[in-house]
């Protein structure tokens, strides 16, 4: 598979009066052409910020640096303003959790799709209108001519997210970044939106980077997954493998605390994860999960969080797990 995106050693920090706080602390991530990669983590783990680095869209007071951020082999960090504009508008499409705040409430949604086409693709008014209608139809909006004339508030949440997707894919991007696209939606609508994204991915061979806090959504939609905690990727691999055989104590604990419909009537309490997710300002060196980890060792405070390969394509940042697996493979237990 051809590599589309490669991020290495990404650091993002927020400046404040007394210094700066690192919220992403050396992230590595790869996305190949046409695949769906999930980025899963709890709030504050740095997943949203990390995916915004791909289009260098940083909030005020945040600075990013990286060993490399490459899109189709081109260095994103070195792009000029004009090049960055072209990169944002043509290469990458992005959708967010709350599509309502992304729209201009005073303009008809169809006009907003057409506007994107005029500005980013350079179509004239009539061509843009025609293409916008086709796009609305392609995201399964029925009666697109009528919806074209609707204002954002007249659409349901699921419908708004469909229009948002239409705008995001309007320039035929090679990567769609979907940041919690279904979090505000009902489960039934959620399933439809995920199916739509999957259908569009197959048809246009674009890659999808799906950011979510919900492992269920990730498991359903993705080929590969990267699990984030405290600004690091702690585990990455094929989604089935990560779910079935988590190779980082955090992933394991997270999967075990996910409530499931199957447990109805079983009345077994889940252990959960003790303590709180880390505050980036208070994180020291070493593994950010060490404080809550049941298998913590003294050496965990010095771990550099680089990813160790356990099987082909399955990586963990936990040397303790990696060691124990290595020991099993050679038949010698430490």
């Amino acid at each position, binding site marked *: 598979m051809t590599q589309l995106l490669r991020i290495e050693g990404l650091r993002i920090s927020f400046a404040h009066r007394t210094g700066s706080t690192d919220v992403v602390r050396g992230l590595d991530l790869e996305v190949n052409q046409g695949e769906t990669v999930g980025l899963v983590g709890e709030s504050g783990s740095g997943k949203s910020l990390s995916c915004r680095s791909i289009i260098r869209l940083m909030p005020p007071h945040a600075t990013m640096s990286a060993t490399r951020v490459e899109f189709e082999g081109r260095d994103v960090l070195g792009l000029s303003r004009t090049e960055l504009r072209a990169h944002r508008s043509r290469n990458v499409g992005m959708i967010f959790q709350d599509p309502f705040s992304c729209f201009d409430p005073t303009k008809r949604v169809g006009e907003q799709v057409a506007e994107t086409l005029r500005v980013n693709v350079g179509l004239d008014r009539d061509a843009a209108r025609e293409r916008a209608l086709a796009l609305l139809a392609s995201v399964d909006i029925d009666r697109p001519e009528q919806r074209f004339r609707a204002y954002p508030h007249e659409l349901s949440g699921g419908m708004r997210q469909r229009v948002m997707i239409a705008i995001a894919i309007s320039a035929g991007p090679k990567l769609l970044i979907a940041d919690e696209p279904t979090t505000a939606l009902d489960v039934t609508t959620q399933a439809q939106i995920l199916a739509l994204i999957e259908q569009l991915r197959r048809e246009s061979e674009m890659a999808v980077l799906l950011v979510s806090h919900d492992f269920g959504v990730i498991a359903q939609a993705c080929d590969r997954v990267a699990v984030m905690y405290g600004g690091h990727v702690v585990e990455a691999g094929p989604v089935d493998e990560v779910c079935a055989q988590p190779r980082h104590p955090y992933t394991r604990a997270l999967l075990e605390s996910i409530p499931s419909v199957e447990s109805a*009537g079983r009345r077994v309490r889940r252990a959960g994860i003790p303590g709180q997710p880390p505050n980036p300002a208070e994180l020291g060196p070493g593994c950010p999960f060490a404080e809550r980890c049941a298998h913590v060792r003294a050496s965990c405070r010095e771990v550099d969080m680089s990813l160790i390969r356990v099987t082909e394509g399955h990586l963990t940042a936990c040397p303790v797990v990696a060691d124990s697996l290595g020991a099993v493979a050679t038949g010698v237990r430490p």
Partner: protein
Amino acid sequence: MTGESMLQVRDLTKRFVLRRSVGEWVRRQPGETHAAVNAVSFDLARGEILGLAGGSGSGKTTLARMLIRLVEPDDGSIVLGGLDVRALRGHDLREVRRRMQMVFQDPYSSLNPRLSVGAAIHEAGRVHHQPGSEDAGPFVARLLDLVRLPAAAAARHPRELSGGQRQRVAVARALAVGPEVLIADEAVSALDVSIQTQLLNLFLDLRDELGLAMLFVAHQLSVIAEVCDRVAIMHLGEIVEIGPTAEVFHSPQAPYTRTLLAAHPRPMALADATDPEPT
């Protein structure tokens, strides 16, 4: 674990009047009505946790709010321990609201940002003349202990706490008035999975320790599956199915319940128990 029925709800209905069109307004016609909750009936027993699930707009929250008359019902009856809740006014209504406490999704907007945690909890107990509330220190300490927060949390303000801790404070504040029924409206929906589990366990502990009855409103079926004894599935203002959680989820009868369950995403079951665990 569950005892006698303490809350009986029968044919509870709430209609909202839709905005009238100009034509209707000119002709002085009444606006069309929409039944947000339509003839809903259920019972809640002491020590029972009843789940209320459904999509957005299904009427879950309206139903929950009607129980303590934050929303006035149009029809039907609510009986709490023999008292007709719909007929009450003034002091008696306040007493019913003490006995049925609500915990909301966003504790940040339901807690006074200017009050310390201790003051917020004590205030609730004092207003309702709860035994022990004359002495703020021990009163607050007991409640914080009940929700597994350290006694030192009393001096903190809501903004200094994490989402999970704030929700515990909201629960402590509800418990400060000695309720018999806890209505949790999407109380864990905004929380991260690892914190969600801690809160769910807390609700189970409180039921066991205090014999509370709970109406647990949530859109996540999996959360309901973990804590509820029975579940009611709402759709378009009606309860389309109600029964023991295991029965409803393992052999759903209503078509809508099946749709909901089918759409519910689930990570693969954790397999491979023989996996080498780091020691």
